[in-house]
């Protein structure tokens, strides 16, 4: 008994040491790592960025040409359109398209994928908004649904299953070939958006369905997935421009756009992207998108042509070199135990071996 106690004690102390000491050391030796705000400019056909220096902000492009703030706004007219508008400097046409503030606003979008959110297990209850209520604003519904062996609607006030609605939706799904139980589901369960496109649901056989509620009736549409594409993660977008329904990543880490009108998949020309461990931001406008992919070490920028999703240019910011103190830390603590990590909210012991 006592010997077992001593073993438990020794193991506990060892684990605590390899958890706490490296953490303390890192806490004391952390340095600020910053990458400048970078965006692709269709005007100069290259990336431009804002650097933070001691004397303030510096506006540059990749060729190291320096701009004034005034000039910088002009090379990114669709991003700084409000500033240009207020100074009456907004161009009337750009790349053969008549520009209006309304058009720019509609076509601009921002999108973000955070691995933390991707790795958060879903609760399993989803509100299905009415997508054509006839009202300007969306309203949160008074029920939620779960996907078990059927699409079950639970009335919130009574906490009881609405059998009628459940049957209506379940039967419609089954009629369209949906096989329960579902594998995954994607949507935006909020009323703070322009419109509602319901949910994308992957069934038991990896078939993809678009499901929404239209005038209290189920709308279900099976979406053809390209051959050899196994959908892994889906992100319903619901942007103002209504051009694309979702972004999708597959098992081979390819990134796709699912277009709204045609329900067709178009691959975006970026290298492997795994949403479970990489973050992505997209700052998009009607002509081009700047996609930023961060895998924790390297930040890569891709300029994507909005008309065909081909990559125009790319830029990489390598992880800054470790300071001597940080390098020494890796030798001092060959094994590090940690319970939290930036890409997942889950608490679980993980370790790294820094000598290998």
């Amino acid at each position, binding site marked *: 008994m006592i010997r077992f106690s001593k073993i438990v004690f020794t193991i506990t102390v060892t684990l605590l040491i390899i958890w706490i000491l490296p953490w303390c050391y890192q806490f004391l030796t952390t340095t600020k790592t910053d990458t400048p705000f970078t965006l692709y400019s269709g005007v100069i056909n290259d990336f431009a960025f804002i650097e933070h220096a001691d004397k303030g902000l510096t506006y540059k492009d990749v060729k190291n040409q320096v701009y004034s703030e005034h000039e910088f706004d002009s090379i990114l007219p669709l991003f700084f359109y409000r500033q240009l508008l207020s100074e009456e400097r907004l161009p009337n046409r750009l790349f053969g398209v008549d520009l209006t503030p309304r058009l720019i606003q509609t076509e601009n979008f921002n999108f973000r994928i955070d691995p933390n959110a991707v790795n958060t297990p879903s609760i399993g209850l989803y509100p299905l908004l009415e997508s054509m209520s006839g009202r300007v604003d969306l309203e949160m519904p008074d029920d939620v649904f779960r996907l078990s062996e059927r699409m079950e609607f639970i009335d919130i006030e009574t*906490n009881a299953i609405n059998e009628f609605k459940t049957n209506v939706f379940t039967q419609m799904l089954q009629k369209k070939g949906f096989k329960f139980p579902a594998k995954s589901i994607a949507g935006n369960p909020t009323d703070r958006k322009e419109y509602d496109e319901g949910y994308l649901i992957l069934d038991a056989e990896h078939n993809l369905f678009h499901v929404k509620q239209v005038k209290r009736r189920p709308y279900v549409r099976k979406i053809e997935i390209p051959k050899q594409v196994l959908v892994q993660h889906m992100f319903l977008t619901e942007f103002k421009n209504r051009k694309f329904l979702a972004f999708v990543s597959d098992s081979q880490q390819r990134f796709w756009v699912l277009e709204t009108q045609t329900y067709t998949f178009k691959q975006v020309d970026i290298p492997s992207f795994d949403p479970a461990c990489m973050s992505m931001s997209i700052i998009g406008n009607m002509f081009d998108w700047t996609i930023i992919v961060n895998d924790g070490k390297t930040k890569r920028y891709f300029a994507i042509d909005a008309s065909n999703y081909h990559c125009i240019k790319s830029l990489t910011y390598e992880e800054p070199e470790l300071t001597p103190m940080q390098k020494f830390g890796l030798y001092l603590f060959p094994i590090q135990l940690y*319970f939290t990590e930036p890409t997942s909210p889950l608490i679980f012991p993980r370790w790294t071996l820094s000598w290998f």
Partner: protein
Amino acid sequence: MKALFYKEWIKTRWFFLAAALVSLTLCEYCLLNISRITELKGAVHVWEVMLTRDAIFIQLIRFVPFLIGILASLVQFVPEMQQKRIKLTLHLPYSQNKSIGTMLLFGILLLTIIFFLNFLFLIVYLNQVFALELVSRIILTAFVWYLAGFLSYLLTTWICLEPTWKRRMINLLIAVALLRVFFLSETPEVYNTFLPFMVLYTVIVSILPLWSVQRFKDGTQD
């Protein structure tokens, strides 16, 4: 064994009754709060906040089991260490490990009863107003806090029964670090995958107080 339970009961009954009362009152307060918000802002709002903003409405009791565990141990074992009264129990014609084990078992049983009552209280109400997924979200999140209650009890006992102050301090530091693991995140259900291992470890840790008692019996000095 019954006699030891009897002795522990006499020693600690008022504390455990108070702990049960306080914890159930706080649970009741949390549940009343849910009712109140439902009244004021509607059930839809409550569900929405739970689904989209990680609310679970029982944050108030997050540290309650942890504190109950510590106090239970202090109430049970500080009197034993005052003037080394534990010698009276260790002198009994009953195995030393069994004696201490019985005392620990008593504490664990009482805590189990109190914590179980808390859960029962919560589940009965929550099941009426929330879907199963939301109830399990709340309960699984709270489970970690209650497990911390058992761990804090065992670790505090380990510290109390240790005869030397120097070692008590070391044990205290270790205990603080271990308990910290249970409170690394406030986000609901993030401990789900780790939970079985945490339960196992808590069970294993119950052996540490026996080592403290052996050190006491050896007359270990600072």
